[in-house]
């Protein structure tokens, strides 16, 4: 009755294993592009989601073609530059939008060529390496906001020597006490900086009416993103985690094509209104909030889906959950958006962001929070402060730290996510 060593059934993988929708298939997927392809297949029922991915994938390549044909393109820091850039006919690309094929060389270039210490945050190392590798490409302008992160400022100084034109917006932070007078001074200073930036980039002042138009467009688009999140409450798996992550990412710079991005959102709204409910293969859906940076290791998002989770609330630097603020002058609106009603989009004290996160968690019925930060980033400390707060509110959370370098997520990160969802299910 004992087993024979030739019983192949024990060692051969199941042949019918093809869908890619199971956690055990994860190790077969490599790199961001494979995950996107796989997710497109999974969303074959939704032309809108497929279009969203296509927009994301063609973003940088199309912008480079635009630049080669004489158009203006700039790499920008922070998710707040779209209205100003589009008002100047400049296509904005976030500085951290890196090559999705994820060259292994980026980190070694940062360490060897730029002599960055090993402990440097991986976002800085990856970006430096990526910019170096792309130094012969046509996009040369970098718009850097000095108040965002010191390591990034240093990185931008270093790439200036590689032929990039670095345009700085001087640092300013929202006053901690929200004193209206001090805030007004801060806003005026920042608005002046933005006006100067426009002149440095184009040689002339920006047309304020166009900035106004672009802010109105941004608000319209954010309204549509919110509508999608609302509709998704009753059908969380219609757009899976990676897809929603791309939707949120796109809401900052519209993948360089505002009209197409907006039309895709319209289509998505139409689809969601009539879509059949998508059941989880695992039965119950565990609704989660994702707070912090977005991981370039797409396997994490797939793991969430495969384990029966769904990220229904994203609290990332793009503040899609509220409109751009109104001000007398549209540049002051941008300044206020940068500084944020609640202490800024990632600027200033992390305590400012507790209430907005709380609102998102409640509004979107998240039963747990994933806090994500990058290895070596000072924001990891923010995460701990925020986790303590939610622990006191009895909302379970988990802190994840990953590298910014594009690659597979570590086994331990996957274990943490999976165990967290098991704990909540």
């Amino acid at each position, binding site marked *: *009755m*004992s*087993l024979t*060593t030739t*019983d192949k*059934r*024990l*060692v*051969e*993988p*199941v*042949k019918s*294993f093809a869908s890619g929708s199971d*956690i*055990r298939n*994860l*190790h077969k997927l490599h790199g961001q592009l494979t995950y996107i392809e796989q997710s497109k297949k999974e969303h074959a029922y939704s032309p809108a989601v497929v279009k969203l991915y296509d927009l994301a994938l063609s973003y940088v390549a199309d912008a480079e073609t635009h630049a080669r044909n004489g158009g203006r393109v700039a790499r920008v820091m922070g998710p707040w530059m779209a209205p100003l850039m589009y008002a100047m006919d400049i296509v904005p690309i976030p500085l951290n939008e890196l090559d999705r094929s994820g060259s292994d060389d980026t980190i070694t270039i940062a360490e060897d060529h730029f002599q960055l210490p090993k402990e440097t945050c991986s976002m800085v190392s990856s970006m430096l390496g990526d910019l170096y590798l792309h130094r012969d490409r046509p996009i040369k302008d970098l718009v850097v906001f000095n108040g965002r992160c010191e390591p990034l400022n240093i990185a931008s100084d270093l790439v200036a020597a590689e032929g990039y034109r670095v345009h700085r917006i001087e640092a300013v932070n929202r006053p901690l006490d929200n004193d209206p007078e001090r805030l007004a001074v801060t806003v005026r200073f920042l608005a002046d900086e933005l006006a100067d930036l426009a002149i440095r980039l184009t040689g002339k002042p920006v047309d304020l009416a166009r900035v106004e138009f672009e802010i109105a467009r941004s608000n319209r688009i954010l309204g549509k993103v919110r509508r999608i999140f609302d509709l998704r409450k009753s059908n969380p798996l219609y757009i899976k985690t990676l897809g929603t992550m791309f939707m949120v990412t796109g809401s900052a710079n519209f993948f360089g094509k505002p009209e197409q991005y907006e039309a895709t959102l319209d289509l998505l709204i139409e689809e969601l209104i009539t879509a059949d409910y998508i059941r989880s293969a695992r039965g119950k859906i565990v609704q989660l909030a994702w707070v912090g940076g977005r991981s370039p290791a797409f396997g994490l998002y797939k793991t969430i889906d495969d384990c029966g989770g769904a990220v229904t609330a994203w609290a990332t630097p793009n503040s899609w959950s509220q409109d751009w603020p109104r001000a007398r002058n549209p540049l002051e609106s941008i300044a206020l958006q940068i500084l944020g009603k609640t202490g800024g989009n990632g600027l200033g004290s992390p305590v400012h962001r507790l209430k907005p996160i709380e609102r998102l968690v409640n509004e979107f019925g998240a039963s747990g929070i994933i806090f994500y930060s990058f290895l070596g980033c000072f924001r990891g400390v923010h995460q701990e402060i925020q986790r303590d707060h939610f622990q006191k509110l009895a909302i*379970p959370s988990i802190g994840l730290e990953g590298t910014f370098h594009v690659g597979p997520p*570590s*086994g*331990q990160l*996957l*274990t*943490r996510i*999976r*165990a967290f969802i*098991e*704990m909540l299910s």
Partner: protein
Amino acid sequence: MNKHDVLADGKVSDLRLTNVIGVDIGSRQAKAVLVYGEEIQTAITASGVDSQETAARLIRKLGKQTGIEPRDIAYLVGTGYGRIALDFDAFPSEVVTEISCHAMGAHFLNAGTRTIIDIGGQDSKAIKVDPDNGRVVDFVMNDKCAAGTGRFLEKVAELLDYTLEELGEKAKLSEKKLEISSQCVVFAESEVISLKARGERREDIAAAIHFASARRVRNLVNRVGLEPELVFSGGVSNNPGMRFALEELIGHPIRTTKLDMVYAGALGAAVFAQRYYEGIHAAAEKGVA
């Protein structure tokens, strides 16, 4: 082993299904638990490169002990570092994280468990457990640094010319408290070398290393908050030197169980296997695919 001799009081009737298997593929060792009638069978082997082959080896071992064949297996749950790759044609299977499995296994072996220290080959964890049902309430994992893991102890054993099994035993013979100040494996290694060069006894160095490791684990326990009863699971759990260092540093006794706690994860996986099996059958009865 008879279930009654191993499981916590009141837990025997909760593990009623026969022929369910839990397989825990760790980074160093792979363990399996088969619930077979009133018996609990265990098997252990070194983890190979191929997790599927390692699992097959364990199942063959269990087959030899009990006579069961693949077609007799009702359900298998894989856990541990190598669980991802597990998949079988001959019987249904699932994967569950080692965190949930260790919690469930510890609960079945000691029902009052609220805190678990789990030290494996490549990471260490502190897990908070609900004593009512064995579910995870909170957990924290250290995988950033090898200090406080089996891998670290292995390295040190090598440096001190001990086997891994000897290392813990010898640490208990220590007579002198030595300080290993570094929490980093690389630096701790060089400290071990200089302590040896200074002529310190190997037993004392071994004890110092266990204390240095236990300090890191204590930090994890503090993070989740220690609540008794405390148990120690994972591949390092039968190392007496580590157990002693943890009890000293945490200031709390570790409960002893009747089954070697290296099997806690596999036992928990077997409990989940029973639940999955029952879930399938309940769904089939209701006509849900």
